[in-house]
């Protein structure tokens, strides 16, 4: 019998892709499973931060119940701050970003230099951005200086009324370029034909913008919003360094709430329960948004 006659033993088809994915899968899911297990366990105990884990006392779901129903819990107030922060950052960033992307989407010298400059705020170290924001928004800071010139009034940005706005403005400065760069890339790859046809038909520039540009850009706008949504919802460093959630609870978004419950109030159990809820909120809302986006894509 020669080798030619033997039927080659074929390896099953799934083997190669499975082996290739295995290292990534093993590493990522081990870390995730270990953390998830530990987090869920911590969320069901009563434990003061700093004490060893053996002092933990199992309390079941009481931590969750306390956060959601107890009158002293600030969880719902935190959610309100979080929603304000989300809307306060995403809406201006989208509108400004779109407008500036349109502005940059013209033939003009220096355009590539401008987009290079816009990369800078996005990649700066967030903790440093927070600290710089703190100085710029101080009473004698840069922001008040320009307010002084324009309106003759200086504001107390560290106070209860304006702290959240200050944090929002820092984010708008940092992340509007994100919208600009992505939407500009989208504008530059729009097909030319519909615009030419519209011009032949005598459409005004405004009409071709609302009837052609906007619908064609919608999927990209939604993708960008979803990505930013995820990031804003989990943002911690900038707010932590600027105001650490204060004054009072005025800048305490969900991630700050997790930190304050665990380390300031030293309640590991409730902090972990809040963490679990943060993860559930972020993942489920993002899944819903991705699904909704896919539906719109099909209809368009």
């Amino acid at each position, binding site marked *: 019998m020669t080798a030619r006659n033997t039927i080659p033993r074929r390896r099953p088809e799934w083997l190669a892709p499975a082996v290739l994915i295995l290292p990534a899968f093993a590493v990522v899911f081990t*870390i995730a499973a270990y953390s998830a297990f530990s987090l869920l366990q911590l969320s069901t105990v009563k434990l003061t931060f700093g004490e060893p884990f053996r002092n933990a006392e199992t309390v079941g779901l009481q931590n969750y119940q306390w956060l959601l129903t107890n009158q002293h819990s600030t969880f719902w107030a935190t959610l309100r701050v979080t929603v304000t922060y989300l809307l306060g950052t995403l809406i201006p960033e989208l509108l400004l970003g779109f407008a500036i992307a349109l502005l940059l989407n013209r033939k003009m010298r220096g355009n590539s230099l401008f987009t290079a400059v816009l990369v800078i705020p996005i990649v700066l170290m967030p903790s440093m951005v927070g600290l710089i924001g703190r100085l710029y928004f101080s009473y004698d800071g840069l922001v008040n200086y320009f307010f002084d010139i324009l309106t003759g009034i200086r504001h107390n940005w560290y106070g209860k009324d304006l702290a959240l706005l200050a944090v929002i403005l820092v984010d708008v400065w940092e992340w509007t370029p994100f919208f600009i760069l992505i939407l500009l890339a989208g504008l530059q790859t729009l097909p030319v034909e519909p615009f030419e046809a519209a011009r032949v038909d005598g459409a005004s520039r405004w009409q071709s913008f609302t009837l052609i540009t906007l619908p064609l850009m919608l999927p990209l706008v939604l993708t960008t919003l979803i990505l930013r949504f995820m990031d804003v919802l989990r943002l911690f460093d900038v707010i932590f360094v600027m105001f650490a959630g204060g004054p009072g609870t005025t800048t305490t978004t969900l991630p700050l709430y997790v930190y304050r419950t665990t380390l300031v109030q030293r309640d590991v159990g409730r902090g972990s329960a809040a963490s679990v809820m943060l993860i559930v909120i972020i993942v489920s809302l993002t899944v819903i948004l991705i699904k909704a986006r896919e539906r719109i894509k099909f209809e368009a």
Partner: protein
Amino acid sequence: MKPNLRSITGSRLLDILTIFVVLVFLFPYLFMVSSAFKSRLETFAYPPIFWGFTPTLEHFENIFNDMHILFYMKNSTIIAVCSTLLTILISIPATYSFARFRFRNKEGIAYGFLFLQMVPGISIVFALFFIARSLDLFDTHIFLIVVYLLWNVPYAIWMMRGFVEGIPVELEESAMVDGASRFKAFRLITLPLMAGGVAATAILIFIGVWNEFSLAFFLTSTNARTMPTTIAFFMTHSGIKWGPMFATATIGTLPVVIFALIVRRYFISALTFGAVKG
């Protein structure tokens, strides 16, 4: 044809507006860098001093000599470089698998990775704190290097998958027809072609780790402390030491800004997990 005067002045105005807008975004950064060279009194001056001050290097001397900033830069570099290399090493085979093979539940698994990427660092950092303590790995480089993989590997897979899918599979197939094994075809043809994308991904992961705050802050104390967490040293009881802080921010952000400008071509894909091509 007569040039349309109104539209020319109109577009001039828009040009000026564009330049103004871009300067608004650049200005806070420039002011930060220039403040690193101001004396203490000049930093606090009201109205702020924009130019005409005598540059001083005292804050840079201070952070290098007294605050040992090089130690924290070394930690940041070790952690960022190791975590990035490990990520790329683990992710390339997985990426290839997602891009080139067909198997059951492929997109489901890909989204599984993506969902893990969404988990906020702050939400598991205290669980990781207890884990680190129980493994005796608190305040070590290796713990941060490994923990960052949870976010880096899914990111790298999503990022690089687009680059591999952009390389025509026919190139590999023709090499295989010529007798090359699948691995050889990958090594000789696909790998060189995706090198640019891999480099860009690596740089962006490096930037992410270099800048990361919450995990580094709560999982280290003295030994493995990184650059972004040094901000705590500037917040003293007698107020914030702004000069050294600006100097540190200038030095800490410099490599990242340079890197980001190098991979600008890939930046749009990078920001969108490869969902949008720039």
